[in-house]
């Protein structure tokens, strides 16, 4: 689909929304809520444009190129009576095809009953870690150029389509955020979400809790759990080099259990995030169990307009996991970077990444990124 076609479809789809003055006016005769007022719409966009220099001896191909990142269109609307709608649509550019892909990453409607109870239904970012629920796809928000390795849709179930109950409970000493969700879960293909059809009718359960103690302002500690049955993938028959059929390792379902936690600290110019997720796969075909571990720690310090930062990423795959076939090369990565806030709503980032891989040669990468919001 071309960019033009995507934009036309987007405009037509949201042309039905009325951009009105909102249901409250600061003029005269104010009422708290006008049942006949039009819904208000907020439209924001986030984007990034990159320059990449990459040296990857494993594939004997060096990169030296400008690269469009993504355009993230964010819309939300107040529908009145504590009901709101939110949507996040991205136009991404695939690195190996030079083509544009449009994805509705989030689309949900939410009803707020109180601070403690909010009910949301639709497509949302799964509650599987700090990064996914904080930064979503807004590269301008995050300090670094890209996401941590474990926070990749190839590793974790990024998105869910389902129902979430969430809220905040406050005491004199802390704030506690929670979310309980039931959703379609993953689709059969790694990286995909069951947006319309749940291939195995088994629902995914997702729980999340985070605590912010008053005793340590800026600190947040969170935990998540995700339970799902990944559908079997029987789309393609498997053959060996001689053309003989071979057993499909994905012919059965995979029971998935993800548990993880994080610590995040943002205070007095200091940024510190440490996050870990363990993904356990119980494979129906082989009868074996596989444990994959992903971890990162990121630190930064704001110095006026500049923020130097460092991140350490690690992925440790349990070899033989049929769900991660083709990507299960363990690695550790060091990223050093500098973020420069060139204005209130734009930033330049300069980042060097060194990936040490177990089975392949190491990779060096330099990225300069312009990230912005408007």
């Amino acid at each position, binding site marked *: 689909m071309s960019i033009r076609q995507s934009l036309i479809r987007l405009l037509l789809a949201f042309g039905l929304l009325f951009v009105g003055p909102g249901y409250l006016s*600061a003029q005269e005769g*104010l009422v*708290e809520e006008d049942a006949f007022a039009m819904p208000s719409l*907020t439209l924001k966009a986030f984007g990034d444009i990159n320059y990449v220099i990459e040296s990857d001896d494993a594939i004997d191909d060096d990169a030296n190129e400008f690269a469009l990142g993504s355009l993230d269109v*964010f819309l939300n609307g107040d529908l009145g009576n*504590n009901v709101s709608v939110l949507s996040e649509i991205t136009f991404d550019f695939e690195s190996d095809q030079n083509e544009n892909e449009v994805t509705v990453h989030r689309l949900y409607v939410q009803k*707020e009953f109180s601070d403690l109870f909010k009910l949301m239904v639709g497509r949302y970012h799964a509650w599987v870690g700090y990064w996914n629920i904080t930064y979503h796809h807004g590269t301008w928000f995050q300090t670094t150029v890209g996401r941590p390795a474990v926070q990749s849709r190839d590793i974790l179930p990024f998105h869910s389509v389902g129902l979430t109950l969430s809220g905040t409970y*406050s005491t004199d000493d802390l704030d506690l955020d929670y979310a309980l969700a039931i959703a379609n879960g993953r689709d059969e293909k790694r990286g995909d979400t069951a947006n319309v059809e749940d291939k195995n009718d088994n629902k995914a359960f997702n729980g999340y809790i985070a605590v912010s103690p008053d005793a340590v302002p800026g600190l947040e500690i969170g935990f998540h759990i995700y339970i799902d049955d990944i559908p079997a993938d029987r789309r393609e028959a498997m053959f060996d080099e001689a053309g003989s059929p071979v057993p499909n390792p994905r012919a059965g379902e995979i029971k998935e259990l993800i548990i993880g936690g994080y610590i995040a600290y943002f205070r007095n110019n200091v940024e510190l995030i440490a996050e870990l997720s363990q993904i356990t796969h119980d494979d129906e075909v082989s009868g074996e169990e596989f444990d994959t571990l992903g971890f990162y720690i990121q630190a930064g310090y704001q110095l006026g307009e500049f923020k130097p930062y460092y991140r350490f990423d690690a992925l440790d795959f349990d070899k033989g996991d049929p769900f991660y076939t083709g990507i299960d090369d363990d690695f550790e990565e060091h990223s050093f970077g500098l973020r420069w806030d060139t204005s209130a709503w734009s930033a330049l980032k300069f980042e060097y990444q060194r990936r040490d891989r177990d089975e392949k040669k190491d990779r060096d990468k330099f990225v300069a990124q312009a990230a912005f919001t408007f």
Partner: protein
Amino acid sequence: MKKSLLLCILLAIWAGGLHSARADEPKSHIAIIVNKNNEIKNLSLKDLTRYLKLDKQHWKNGKKIYLVMQQSGSMEKKALLNMIYHTDDAGLKRYWLGKMFRGEIVSIPKTFNSNDAIKKFVSQVPSAIGFINASDQDDSVKAIQIDGYSPGDQNYPLIARAGAE
């Protein structure tokens, strides 16, 4: 040795003068105002912070609060940027944008350009909450206590110093 002692004495006098000057700086109390029909009378500073940061968005009666802000540059806003939000204007805008992006709020709080405009709005919207210079408060709105102290009390926590950045 004598020179060092003299220098220390001069520095002490200068520092004392600074403290005295600071203590004598004109100070204003920032009143947190709500609609007169709002039952709330007192908030802890912690709870007030939660409301002003929209970490808490509902009054005890279940009504959603309607937070209104002062425009950039006002003394009252500077005071709260320092005491409540711990950031500057640009940082606060990023804070609101982040909350909106995460789906925690639907829109950025409305901004008014004067204490009178805020008073008028709060007086007419039952669930509204705002902040003004306590000297501008009148009977059209209700100023709530913070940690049991009213604007004007010696231990009232929300103080703005004239000329403070």
